[in-house]
């Protein structure tokens, strides 16, 4: 097989080579030594969240019965939490571990001494983050089904929506990470970016309850689209146009983030 080169100068002709699969293999090798922890955490976290918030807090919410369509609170937040936890994991994986590979352990630099190129590292690690989001979302889905928290079998499609949401966060955050010299910036990113999104993207209450001037802000955040899409699927209340818009918005952010990552990876790693 001919070796595809990712040249050091000029515009890259290919997005990444098949060698990016080797980077995914690396991450799976690391995963292999701790996979039982991932499974245990992947099942227990959703269970605790859904019991505490969906069932516990839901008792009070349902008593007032003013969620749209009288949906039980557990059913309302379950698909949203499925998406947010995939997003959270992806955001984390795109920050500290990537910084470690670039700056602390410099394992990216070791990989660059092999036929792998910077674009392979970016694509390979995004694949890993996608894999991890898939695994977490499937486990979350298992808990949702076990608790009877989904009205529609379409809930299974909440998994690809969650993975797409994860990538819509991972790609731009990885791009950002490659511009940082230390992990200082991550604290601000999570404090002022990720955590507010988690709370105010329609996860726990409809964004219509936000002050009117904040609502447009919610529309442009990818998490809102992920949550809205997954919820419509889980509740069996799919509006084709809205769903298309949500998915397109997520895909657009992921693609733009990847393009940004290509630029920042190259600037950081090819000097």
């Amino acid at each position, binding site marked *: 097989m001919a070796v595809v080169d990712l040249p050091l100068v000029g515009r890259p002709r290919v997005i990444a080579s098949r060698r990016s699969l080797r980077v995914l293999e*690396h991450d799976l090798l690391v995963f292999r030594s701790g996979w039982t922890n991932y499974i245990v955490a992947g099942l227990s976290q959703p269970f605790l969240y859904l019991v505490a918030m969906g069932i516990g807090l839901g008792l009070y919410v349902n008593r007032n019965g003013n969620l749209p369509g009288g949906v039980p609170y557990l059913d309302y937040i379950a698909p949203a939490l499925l998406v947010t936890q995939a997003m959270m994991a992806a955001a984390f994986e795109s920050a500290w571990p990537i910084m470690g590979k670039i700056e602390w*352990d410099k394992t990216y630099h070791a990989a660059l*001494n092999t036929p792998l190129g910077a674009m392979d590292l970016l694509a390979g690690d995004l694949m890993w983050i996608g894999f991890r989001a898939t695994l977490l979302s499937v486990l979350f889905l298992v808990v949702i089904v076990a608790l009877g928290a989904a009205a529609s079998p379409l809930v299974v499609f909440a998994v690809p929506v969650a993975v797409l949401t994860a990538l819509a966060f991972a790609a731009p955050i990885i791009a950002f990470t490659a511009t940082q010299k230390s992990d200082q910036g991550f604290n601000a990113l999570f404090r002022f970016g990720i955590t507010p999104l988690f709370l105010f993207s329609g996860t726990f209450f409809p964004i219509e309850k936000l002050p009117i001037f904040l609502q447009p802000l919610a529309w442009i955040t990818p998490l809102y689209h992920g949550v809205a899409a997954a919820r419509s699927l889980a509740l069996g209340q799919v509006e084709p146009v809205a769903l298309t818009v949500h998915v397109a918005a997520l895909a657009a952010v992921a693609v733009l983030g990847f393009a940004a990552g290509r630029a920042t990876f190259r600037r950081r790693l090819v000097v």
Partner: protein
Amino acid sequence: MIAKPETSAPLIHAQGLTKRFGSFTAVDGIDFDVAPGEAFGFLGPNGAGKTSTMRMIGTVSPVTAGELTVFGLDPNHQGAKIRARLGVVPQADTLDNELSVLENLLIYGRYFDLSWAESRRRATELLDFVQLTERSNDKVEPLSGGMKRRLVIARSLINEPSLLLLDEPTTGLDPQARHLLWDRLYRLKQKGVTLCLTTHYMDEAEQLCDRLVVMDQARIVAEGSPRQLIDRYVTREVLELRFRRAEDELDDSAHIDGKLHGLAERVEQLPDRVLVYTADGEAAAAAAYERGLRAASVLVRRATLEDVFLRLTGRSLVE
């Protein structure tokens, strides 16, 4: 069809090779060739441009200007093909702390497209070569500096490279660890692997290099074998004199110069000692004593690359 003749074409060819970072010139138009089977060194202080040169050869840093070929290929556009045949020991260990010693080698083999079975076969062999077999399943973190270095060398050999790039391979190691490492590199050289290394240790350059260039401030200032460089730029022996601070003679460099006048080819006054370059150190020491020069300590030694560097740049190699 005519068979291609066995060429002695250089593995690395550089002409006017230049690397600039913005307005800073790290490598300023250097020329050199590295022949197959040779151990070639870049000797120079920190910041001389050695690492930038190595990174361009390793095709991880674009060439700014000038000509560079590695295996006859262009690093800027055929990097993956070059890297497939290259072994690299970077200055920092860059080992993967999340993986075991063995796994570090296994995945690196995969990066070179080896099958898992082949990667495992070579990894096992290489761990034996660098004497780390019994640490195979340990994590990397608890290993000593010397062990980590050996593991990095094993890793760089997983693709059976014909050219090995080593950037300061023994910096920060204790003498015992250095000698073990040198021994392994010597064995590789015996097997026909071409070595290209940077160092700021003159003893390392003397031990390992058939031929070397001395770099200073982004340029090559001299080239030759260690012996040739010593013959060309300094005398066979060096007389080192140290003077006691309290005495009158001490800071009177003109006085010392006067006493040594005619005894040596060259006299170099350093802050802590005086170096007298001469073919016969013992004779010069005796003559200086006769002239009434009283040093606190007298040492006669063979000239080294350190002296060559001092002569060429007016500065010491390791500050």
